[in-house]
């Protein structure tokens, strides 16, 4: 089936004219039509646009054009503004919003010939680890526990992107990661996903959650597919002051590099007594694979790991409370009328934002408010400096780090909803790299006892995604992960 191809295989098939871009896109649109009512991975499906893009790709292919993503159908997280295509950020407040501009990352993908199937569901404003906070309904993980049909969460916030790719509704997808929003859902959905170095992908045109942390990255079913997609997404953008003016390496080539001689760090603080034994075992297995491939395993310390989450839950809400002030019902989005301007603001934002967003905006407002700034925000920034120092020190000894991606496999929809902190703990392994801005890749490594995928996380030095890809590709080869989710294209419901 065309939908079972990897992105690289589909690219090669198009080049060989084994099938047309229109056929490839139609196959994926069929999968979307069949599966989306159940999985809810897409908020908006842009079928007509996708068909037109695919037809244009076929014309270009016929002329012998060779662009990296020509004719390859993708899902776009609904946090990326897309010109003329509704962009909601998973929020009621942006429900009617149609941007008159294209984000730099998606513009880069279009430049390289990609086909956009539609906008992927997500936690509202990317705030969440389960996709339960979307105003457009939860996303169901295509994976289910063995012998148990209960709907599981795909993780979040890029849950729609990851579910769409896992269920073969798209060859790959864009995603964003602020504290783990690429890596954790990739792990939950049994696919690969990389958060590149902060500054690698332009943030221009991506609805902001926490500006000092937000990074776009790809999710796909193979490490190489992620490398191909990142190669198109990345690049310097003068419209983003935090964009790094660096050349984009050949990430796909890096996937074929050997890991022999690389020093792989094992951060001892990631071990804990409450880590499920299956995850601990998977981690050890990953280390063994790398050792077998010639890497040297080194014990390292990231002493401030345990403070990462608390730091994150000050910094991210603080920035979000300010970033989300623009949703006021004046220039775009939903407005709820009020008696006066202030009343209009308060009603618009109370009704437009969901509970988790309101909670985080309140926390952020509080930690920045007079009398609390030093105790919370300033202290968090100092701890953040210590977390960065941890990584800098570790990378003086090792080339990359290996950890589990998440402390658990996918959980059931509705779980952890009563206690915000329990939900936040999902990001315990992913947040430190976000705070430090270093790249992190999640690779599917195996299944737990209930048949759910588990991911391993490879962290690298700033702007050394190539080593991360090399290590990730080695793990992928060793794991030989070919398990399939229960819900996927071509399987009757």
């Amino acid at each position, binding site marked *: 089936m065309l939908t079972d191809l990897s992105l690289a295989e589909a690219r090669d098939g198009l080049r060989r004219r084994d099938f047309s871009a229109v056929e490839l896109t139609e196959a994926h649109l069929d999968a979307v039509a069949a599966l989306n009512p159940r999985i809810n991975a897409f908020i908006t499906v842009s079928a007509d646009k996708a068909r037109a893009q695919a037809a244009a790709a076929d014309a270009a292919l016929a002329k012998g054009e060779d662009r990296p993503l020509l004719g390859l159908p993708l899902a776009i997280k609904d946090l990326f503004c897309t010109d003329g295509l509704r962009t909601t950020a998973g929020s009621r407040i942006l429900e009617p919003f149609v941007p008159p501009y294209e984000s730099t990352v998606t513009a880069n993908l279009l430049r390289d010939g990609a086909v956009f199937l539609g906008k992927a569901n997500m936690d509202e404003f990317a705030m969440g680890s389960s996709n339960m906070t979307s105003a457009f309904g939860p996303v169901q993980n295509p994976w289910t526990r063995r012998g148990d049909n209960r709907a599981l969460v795909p993780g979040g916030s890029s849950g729609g992107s990851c579910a769409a790719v896992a269920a073969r509704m798209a060859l790959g997808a864009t995603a964003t990661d602020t504290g783990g929003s690429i890596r954790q859902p990739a792990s939950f959905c049994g696919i690969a996903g990389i958060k590149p170095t902060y500054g690698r992908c332009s943030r221009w045109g991506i609805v902001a959650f926490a*500006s000092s942390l937000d990074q776009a990255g790809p999710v796909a079913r193979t490490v190489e597919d992620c490398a191909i997609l990142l190669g198109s997404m990345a690049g310097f953008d003068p419209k983003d*002051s935090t964009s790094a003016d660096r050349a984009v390496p050949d990430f796909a080539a890096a996937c074929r590099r050997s890991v022999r001689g690389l020093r792989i760090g094992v951060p001892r603080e990631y071990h804990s007594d409450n880590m499920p034994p299956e995850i601990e075992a998977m981690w050890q297995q990953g280390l063994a694979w790398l050792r077998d491939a010639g890497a040297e395993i080194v014990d390292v310390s990231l002493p401030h790991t345990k403070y990462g989450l608390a730091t994150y839950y000050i910094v991210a809400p603080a920035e979000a409370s*300010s970033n989300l002030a623009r949703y006021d019902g004046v220039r775009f989005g939903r407005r709820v009328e009020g008696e006066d301007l202030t009343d209009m603001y308060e009603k618009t934002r109370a009704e437009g934002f969901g509970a988790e967003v309101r909670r985080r905006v309140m926390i952020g407002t509080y930690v920045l408010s007079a009398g609390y700034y030093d105790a919370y925000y300033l202290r968090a920034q100092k701890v953040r400096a210590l977390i960065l120092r941890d990584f800098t020190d570790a990378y003086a000894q090792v080339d990359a780090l290996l950890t589990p991606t998440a402390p658990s496999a996918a959980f059931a929809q509705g779980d952890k909803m009563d206690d915000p902190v329990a939900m936040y703990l999902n990001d315990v392994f992913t947040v430190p790299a976000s705070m430090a801005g270093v790249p992190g890749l999640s690779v599917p490594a195996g299944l737990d006892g209930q048949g759910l995928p588990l991911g391993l996380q490879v962290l690298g030095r700033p702007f050394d995604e190539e080593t991360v890809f090399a290590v990730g590709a080695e793990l992928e080869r060793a794991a030989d992960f070919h398990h399939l989710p229960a819900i996927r294209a071509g399987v009757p419901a």
Partner: protein
Amino acid sequence: MSGVIEGRDGPWEMVIGLEVHAQVISRSKLFSGSATEFGAEPNTQVSLVDAAFPGMLPVINGECVAQAVRTGLGLDAHINMVSRFDRKNYFYADLPAGYQISQYAHPVVGGGSIEIELADGSTKRIGVTRLHLEQDAGKSLHDQHPSKSFIDLNRSGIALMEIVSEPDLRTAEEAGAYLRKLRTILRYLGTCDGNMEEGSMRADVNVSVRRHGEPFRTRCEVKNVNSVRFVMQAIEAEAARQVEVWESGGTVEQETRLFDPARGVTRSMRSKEDAHDYRYFPDPDLLPLVLDEGWVAGLRAGLPELPDAKRARFVAEHGLSAYDAAVLVADQETAAFFETVAAGRDAKLAANWIMGDFFAALNRTGCSIGDSPVSAGALGQLLDLLADRTINGRIAKEVFEAMVDTGESPAGIVESRGLRQVTDTGAIDGAVDRVLAAHPDKLAEYRGGKDKLFGFFVGQVMKAMAGKGNPALVNEALRQRLSA
């Protein structure tokens, strides 16, 4: 205007500090590429960045930074080689992002000072606390619709320099002098056009009152006053209000107020009633602003001569009085005009002509120095005609008025109207003879000792010569004939 308010139970002193918002002269906005021109159609000079659309990001305009640094150098201020941008968070309809990008903790320019000149000839140095860059807000129009306010974001995101003075000002006059001097410096530097009517320079006035020798009492801020005159009036009105509050046993509350020029009073601002808690924090969309030493040195080398230096030079080089020099340097174009006219000529005479007939003509015609019908070159030519005695002083005024009316050259006017001075002694003697013959009675009176009739005879001779007689020769000829 003295700084002392006589209260019911003794005198009060005013304490005044000014926060001036000066719009930076630049083609595009501080963080976006939209234009900054004044007066465009609503929302036509607005980018998606200015309107704070989702995902839009600020990128700083280097020229705005250069302008702030130039201004700092012009105020003798410390330039901070590393500064930072913060977000000032508050909700308002004309603040699209819900925050203003400003520099709170680490401004680009630190302490400096401005010397002001007062009417009694004294000078006073006023401290400048800091200068920082920030975004302007849009404009709300409240009078276009019965139940709605209209928002125009053309101004949103234009670069402002906020220039904060120390509370060193003690009178409304000092505040006025400070504002005018600051405006002059900004105009010299070309960093702000200083146009208060168009709002490109606005002042927030902090006023408190105290008994002599006391520490500062609570201050109030009078927002957005848009002329020097109104600033001075607002200070007087607000200080008087505070004295009244204190003397009737009340307490002045720290608050933001508005000045109503029509009624000459300040009033509390309703929309600012909410407790302020701006939640400043470093803008994560931006990076630290790190200046290069060589770049700053280049800006310093490119600064024009500033008014204080120019004034000192006019006194030293041209022998002008301090007062005349101060008047001429108050405006850069006037100073340049003066220098052109004075070049190689009698500088004091040039200054007198400019401050006298020339300014009067500008006033009368409503022209500015830039579109004056009399150029500096033409005025210089007129002074040359005086110096080489082609015309006399009285004719010169006539020629000048003709220059204002026609724009013609002074030489052309003198020739076409036959205004050349008569130095032919035969012609002068003839005119003297005719005048004396025509006034035998006056001649008798003069000879009888009424000396002051000499002036009458001079006038009559000049009149007979249509004003063109050389005054010295006319005097000489008359003196000879009358004493004969």
